[in-house]
């Protein structure tokens, strides 16, 4: 510091901490230019481009969000349709299964009825045939027995009433003797 001041005294130099007029004037000119440049050009432009970029990015984000929402809605719809389809398919399957079961039951019933009918028919027929056989047998056995008896007693049992009574009695005797034997 002291040497500086001494040096200042030696030549045409002055105190380094006191500005010369030209120094301060040019400083002011330079600073005004810088301040004007940044104030009116650089910073406004900087802000404009930042805002523009922010707007674009925000727009892009909004667009992406829209697209995503749309995709989500589509997916939801698709899922719903799928679920509906599945439900419908299940319903149809259930229904057809029930129908199938009903048809089967009906067929079974019909078959049973048919078999019962056939069985009944057969029994009736058998019964009829037995009755017929019994009747014919009775008639034949009666005739045979009377023939036999006529020959034995020598008497013709022409009177049907008598003959029938005789046969019946004979048969009844036969039956009782058989049951007694048994």
């Amino acid at each position: 510091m002291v040497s500086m001041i001494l040096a200042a005294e030696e030549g045409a130099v002055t105190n380094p901490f006191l500005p010369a007029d030209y120094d301060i004037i040019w400083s002011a000119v330079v600073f005004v230019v810088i301040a004007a440049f940044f104030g009116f050009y650089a910073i406004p432009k900087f802000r404009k481009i930042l805002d523009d970029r922010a707007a674009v990015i925000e727009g892009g984000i909004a667009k992406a969000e829209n697209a995503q929402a749309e995709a989500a809605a589509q997916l939801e719809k698709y899922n719903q349709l799928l679920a509906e389809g599945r439900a419908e398919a299940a319903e149809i399957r259930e229904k057809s299964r029930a129908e199938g079961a009903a048809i089967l039951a009906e067929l079974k019933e019909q078959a049973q009825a048919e078999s019962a009918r056939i069985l009944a028919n057969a029994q009736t027929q058998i019964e009829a045939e037995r009755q017929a056989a019994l009747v014919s047998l009775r008639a034949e056995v009666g005739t045979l027995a009377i023939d036999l008896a006529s020959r034995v007693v020598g008497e013709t049992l022409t009177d049907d009433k008598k003959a029938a009574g005789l046969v019946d009695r004979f048969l009844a005797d036969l039956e009782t003797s058989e049951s007694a034997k048994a």
Partner: protein
Amino acid sequence: MPRSQERALHADTVTLAAGEGGEFHAPGIGEFLGLPELFFAGTPFAIDRIVMVRIIAIALMLLLFWLGLRRARRVPGRGQSIAELALDFVNVQIADQVLGEKHGKRFLPLLAAIFFGVFAMNITGIIPGANIAGTALIGMPLLLGLVAYVVFIYAGIKEHGAGGFFRGQLFPSGVPWPIYIILTPVEFINIFIVRPLSLALRLLLNMMVGHLLLVLCFSATHFFLFSADGFFKLFSIGTLAGGFIFTLFEMLVAVLQAYIFTLLTAVYIQQSVSHEH
């Protein structure tokens, strides 16, 4: 430009010549003051080497910014990216961080002007051909200090009114009244005298000392290499290495001083507008 550079170099060789006679003279205040006036000599508009360097540095800085922002696009090119990066640094690191969004927006142009102006005029200290910082002469730092001073007072008065501002600054609340007897003069000296002067002097002295260190290293290298005998020539290696390191250091200082100046300006504005005072 070539003529002025020639003259600028001439001015350097004048100081270097002092060391060439076999005797070594350390560089002094003559590096900064009493330089030959190149244009408009003898008028208040005289331009010497340092003023010349200022004007060229600022012109180049503004040109670079203009080129970078000329066709500003949504998707930035290389130049635009760099310009935006630089502006964003001041915007985010200084304006928004210190002043907050509202005031930061208001004072960003001023802070950007101070930051890039100071940086451009600092960095010339290591640019060959310029070889001196434009801020190494008191005028520029003093003017910038005054700008900061006017702006923080203006901001405070605008925010709180003249009475509110001075009362807030000189009579901080939450202090028992007798303390004001000591506190108020101290605050007055601190805020209204020390602040602008410390801004100006910090920048000026950093740049002056940086320049002197570089000149010392390089003129010593010159002296050892050409004027010293035999063994002593080897010293030039050490001094050159010193000059190299100080050049790198000056790069850092150029950015750092620009940052500090701008940051402190922002801090002073913030203290003026804040509600705590």
